[in-house]
């Protein structure tokens, strides 16, 4: 039976890893993820988590330890944020290429420079082509639930891909919320003990993992990863259906909120989705036909779901919470635009480094769409006028 508890996104992430019965922890602290590294330490010391806590000296080592441990046949847990994820980058590729189904909470925070402690999606967007699945949570409940869903999907023999479960820094990680905490027995029935379907480290069954690969085989190994990504939407849907049966909560690769008869829809990722839905309700009361399409699974990219949800929608906007330099529009907008060939898709940028994406920001965006004022170019929704004159040089 579930219990109802008050916790925040970090608490939910820690509980998710604990319920998944990770046996090795290798987390390095970084704002705003640090409470996860602390909570897991508490669980190990108080005995509620039977795991070895490796007090790693960097995120690069955190992911390395997790990979090493998981290759021996146990679930290994780590979590990070921002520049910590960036520091892990090289090793993320090892987990992806060696098909190691690690599930890692990523507390979204901007990369540097400029230095910031606060929420945006630049960190996970920078990893979008690396071979990790990416799920984005709207609430603390989703953080916990998506972690369990991620384990089942990642570890499926048809998939064998690692997953990042992304939660917005501070907006989710530090925001208290009431969630349903499933009991361990029910989680165990949903998520059986870890079994590796692939190569492993065992003196009784020796093999040499991750040796140099010739050009004559590399393409095919990358293709193997692509085949898994291709199967991922189907497997995710299966797992989500089973999740609903077991725990009663419904998930899908995208969530369409009041899109059926909408003239304008904004595509969102993460906690901004909640504000988006709230604003939709306000605007609907004023007679405006608007909706929100929340992307839960960004990798694999839910092209079919996006196409079908927005089939009858006239104008689409995408709020990117990262800048996507050098491209016409931000990363999510780029991919949505490509999927919806021909339909006007306005790229927006907002909410960088913890700037709140408020109902006013959503209203501004919806107004743009409803007035058909869409362009090829990205619009920075919450930009201040004095953008170029922030720092006067005084002699």
């Amino acid at each position, binding site marked *: 039976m579930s219990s109802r508890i008050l916790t925040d996104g970090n608490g939910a992430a820690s509980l998710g890893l604990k319920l998944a019965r990770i*046996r*090795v922890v*290798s987390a390095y602290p970084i704002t705003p993820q640090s409470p996860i590294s602390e909570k897991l330490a508490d669980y190990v010391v108080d005995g509620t988590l*039977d*795991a*070895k806590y*490796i*007090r*790693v*000296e*960097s995120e*690069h*080592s955190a992911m*390395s*330890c*997790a*990979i*090493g*441990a*998981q*290759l*021996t*046949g*146990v679930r*290994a847990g780590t979590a990070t944020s921002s520049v910590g994820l960036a520091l892990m980058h*090289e*090793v993320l590729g*090892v987990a992806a290429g060696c098909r190691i189904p690690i599930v890692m909470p990523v507390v979204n925070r901007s990369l540097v420079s400029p230095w910031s402690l606060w929420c945006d999606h630049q960190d996970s967007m920078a990893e979008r082509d690396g071979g990790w699945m990416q799920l984005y949570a709207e609430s603390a409940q989703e953080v916990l639930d998506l972690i369990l869903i991620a384990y089942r999907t990642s570890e499926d023999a048809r998939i064998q891909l690692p997953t990042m479960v992304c939660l917005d820094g501070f907006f989710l990680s530090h925001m208290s919320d009431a969630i349903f905490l499933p009991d361990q027995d029910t989680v165990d029935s949903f998520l059986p003990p870890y079994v590796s379907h692939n190569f492993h*480290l*065992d*003196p009784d*069954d*020796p*093999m*040499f*993992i*991750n*040796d*140099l*690969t*010739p050009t*004559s*085989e590399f393409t095919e190994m990358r293709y193997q990863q692509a085949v898994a990504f291709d199967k991922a939407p189907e497997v995710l849907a299966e797992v989500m259906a089973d999740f609903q049966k077991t725990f009663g909560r419904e998930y899908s690769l995208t969530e369409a909120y009041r899109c059926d008869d909408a003239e304008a829809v904004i595509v969102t990722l993460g906690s901004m989705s909640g504000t988006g839905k709230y604003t939709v309700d306000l605007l609907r009361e004023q007679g405006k036909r608007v909706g929100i399409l929340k992307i839960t699974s960004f990798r694999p990219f839910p092209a079919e779901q996006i196409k079908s949800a927005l089939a009858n929608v006239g104008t689409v906007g995408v709020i990117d919470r990262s800048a996507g330099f050098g491209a016409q529009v931000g990363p999510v907008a780029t991919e949505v635009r490509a999927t919806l060939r021909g339909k006007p898709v306005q790229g927006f940028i907002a909410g960088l480094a913890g700037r709140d994406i408020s109902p006013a920001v959503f209203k501004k965006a919806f107004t743009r769409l409803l007035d058909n004022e869409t362009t090829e170019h990205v619009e920075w929704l919450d930009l201040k006028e004095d953008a170029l004159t922030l720092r006067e040089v005084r002699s």
Partner: protein
Amino acid sequence: MLTMKSESKGLIANGVSLCSGCGLELAARIILDVLGTNTVIVIPPGCAALFSGYGSETVTKLAGFQGNLENTAAYASGIKAGFEMQGRGDIQVLGLAGDGATVDIGLQSLSGALERGDKILYICYDNEAYMNTGIQSSGSTPLSAWTTTTPGGKPVYRKDMLGIVAAHKIPYAASASVGYVDDLRRKVEKARTATATGPAYLHVHVPCPTGWGIKPAQAIEVAKLAVQSRYWPLYEVVDGEEYKLTVPVSKPKPVAEYLRLQKRFAGVNAQQLDVLQSAVDHEYASLMKKML
């Protein structure tokens, strides 16, 4: 299971594409002979990666993993933890990394593993440069040695890696050389035993004919001269505090005799030789002060 398409006496195939006369090849065979099959090996890119294999083929019979250049110790720590949590803590986890991968880029992850007391065996094979990528200088390259990135001779003495390791106060650390194979063998055995209580570290001198400019046939002779000139003292450190010389050298040969056989020191003039001899004497004297 490995498909055995070749036979070999030991845990490494007799045909490995390491250079003729490679000091590492000899060291690795001795190390694995001592450790045995209940071992998992972690190898970073570098000369030792020749043991990992290419494509579907490998030349080692052990369970193994090729990591990145700087995180051998971190992978080893994670692997050890995973086995410990499954009641298989008896499995020896060995990291076999070169000087570049240890003394330079790998220093952080090694230090972390040593500080935590993770029960891994870390062996640094030191051929004194990034040899596999074509003889670039590392923090272990000797003073005045030619490398492709120190074509005028390295201007500074090598890092005292064993001193750094000793500062972590691990159960067992030692220097070794393929010039003294019995001493090496004994030390691998002691290191293996020590990993029951914490990390153990060996720093093994392995001459590289290709990079040092010596005849392959002279690899062992040169290794011996390194020890006999006191350039490469053979000692062990227990718990970071008890120092013991395992091969005393009472009548040291001049460093010049050691350098003479190596083309990488061909450009060393008389003054540089003096500086190098003084540095060797000084380092040795400092070391002797720590001895029991």
